[in-house]
């Protein structure tokens, strides 16, 4: 029966592609969030990172870089950003990227004049399978970045396996073809000795996920040595614990559970 065997073939092809889909995920490296996401988010897809407020742009760029580094697995990165962002929030700093865990030598920075150029560079990068991931930094809500443009980027990413991380700054979340959409804000870090700022911390919120996962919020810290996230401990209570009497045991037990 040729019809039945054809049907079988079609079904097995479908199964293969869905299996491949499930296998091609990259996790955050923190069991809490990877569990909630069912293993991670798709490699070779478009993901969007929104800065919650304008001053969170640096945090959004940092979080985007974290995702790109995890997705790229040591392969080259392309970072496309509008030229004037260098004035607005400073130019990308190689030593800072190295300090963040990236390899500046494997990053290609493209600095077009306008958003259309940034999207153009992104689609070029998305068509080059040798690229691990591409960061696409867009300011505001340019007209050229519509549903069609994001769908085109998503398709190109799927075909080549290049993970696209679009960093949207000074923009409100809007419909797009992104696989997942995140809102990022800076979070107070766990201070080190002598009250020094600690590892980069982010308050992230999953706004939308293609497979319908419910919106969730996480607080994460980035570990530059292992290139992975860790769930951040709850922020310390703002009121300092008095030195002359011990803190209540119930409260500390609660803290342990949560951490």
């Amino acid at each position, binding site marked *: 029966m040729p019809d039945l065997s054809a049907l079988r073939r079609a079904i097995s092809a479908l199964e293969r592609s869905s299996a491949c889909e499930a296998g091609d995920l990259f996790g955050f490296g923190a069991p809490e969030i990877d569990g909630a996401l069912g293993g991670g988010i798709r490699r070779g897809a478009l993901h969007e990172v929104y800065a919650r407020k304008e001053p969170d742009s640096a945090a959004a760029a940092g979080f985007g870089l974290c995702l790109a580094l995890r997705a790229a697995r040591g392969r080259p990165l392309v970072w496309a950003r509008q030229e004037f962002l260098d004035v607005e929030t400073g130019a990308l700093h190689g030593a800072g990227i190295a300090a963040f865990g990236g390899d500046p030598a494997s990053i*290609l920075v493209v600095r077009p004049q306008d958003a259309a150029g940034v999207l153009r560079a992104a689609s070029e990068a998305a068509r080059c399978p040798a690229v691990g991931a591409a960061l696409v930094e867009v300011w505001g809500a340019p007209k050229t970045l519509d549903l069609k443009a994001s769908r085109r980027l998503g398709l190109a990413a799927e075909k080549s396996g290049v993970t696209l991380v679009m960093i949207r700054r000074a923009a409100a979340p809007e419909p797009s073809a992104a696989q997942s959409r995140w809102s990022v804000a800076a979070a107070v870090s766990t201070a080190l000795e002598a009250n020094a700022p600690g590892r980069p911390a982010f308050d992230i919120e999953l706004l939308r996920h293609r497979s319908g996962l419910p919106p969730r919020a996480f607080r994460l810290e980035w570990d530059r040595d292992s290139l992975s996230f860790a769930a951040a401990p709850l922020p310390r209570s703002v009121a300092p614990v008095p030195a002359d009497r011990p803190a209540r045991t119930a409260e500390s037990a609660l803290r342990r559970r949560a951490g």
Partner: protein
Amino acid sequence: MDHEPGEDAALLGRLAEAADRWTPLVALDPPHGLVLDVTGCAHLFGGEAALRDDVLKRFRAGGFSVRASLAGTPDAARALARFGRVAIVPPGGEATAVRPLPVAALRLAESERAALSLAGLKRIGDLADMASAPLAARFGEELPARLRRALGRDDVRITPLRPPPAVRVEKRFAEPIAHQQAIEGALGELVSRAVARLEETGRGGRRFEAGFFRTDGAVRRIAVETGRPSRDARAVLRLFHERLDALADPLDPGFGFDVVRLAVPTVEPLGQAQPGLDGKAIEEDEVSDLVDRLAARFGPERVLRFASADTHDPARASRLAPAPAAPAAPGRDMGHRQEAGEPPLRPLQLFEPPQPIETLAEAPDGPPLRFRWRRALHRVVHAEGPERIAGEWWRAPGQPTRDYYRVEDDEGRRFWLYRAGLYDRETARPNWYLHGLFA
């Protein structure tokens, strides 16, 4: 109107570009001459006379009064064009043609000409019969050498404005082409012809230059470069497409192009393509192709890579350099090494120049408690520092020492601040700056 030598020189340069249609070997003869080496080119235009007529016709159409002579050596042709009446000198006839010309045709300084004139030597013929030794003794080595070249006894080739390319193919159109499609078709054909020529010699091009010659004499040149030697016709054509697409002022055919030329000025040896056993080399090639495409589209100054410099000045430690010229370099840490377990000590984004801020500090040499940047007030909750970075006195003396602090405000935003100048030693009221943003 006043005479503007700069404008004249620029015009002569443009005319030299346009003269490129007859031969690639064009040299300037300032202030108002061009020397063309047409060896082996004349047959393309139907002989020397036809070539000369074409030159005269086109320059006259541009509103110039022009004189042209063709001779066996550049000096003879130049002397005849400026001082003679012979249009085309038959082979070996330079001496006869040049003899009646005044000595000024030898490109002499005014003093030399006056000295020759005092000696009664007014025409080249008067000099031609003299022995060169006494001439050299009296007027210097240069004069007999010029004389020999003008008489056709010595042949010194011109130094062309642009060195002849390794490979050059062109297409001429009896009917000028103006349509985008026809232009692209011509370009496609030229690219495949050039690629075939490169393949014969086992070379690949690093730079491809298309010249579009308009009927009215204007020339537009468009070049693309590749990161590694290439003779992939499709890839090169794609780069040209990117380049033509991205032109700020598009290719204007006017009344049409009658010559389209493709030159490959930079070539390198390129063996037969042989994929490596690991995919690494292929990947590198793909990234290098991506760089070419992006550079063709946005210009090489917008496609960048980090280049590290051996300095502790943060602003110079990692600068961005055009990627096409700077291949991926080792040097992971960009001049700043970090221990494992530390948080990032350098910001992801750096302001250049640093932004001035207003601060309120507890102690004059401590971190700030609060600071105001872009009209927003930030309350510092965590701070670390100072990390003292002295100015590079060997580059620019007198720069104040900087004390850097890593601070975090109560909303979790992390900043890299510094105080310029050591308190009490270099300045009484140090200024504060914000230099970078941590993620």
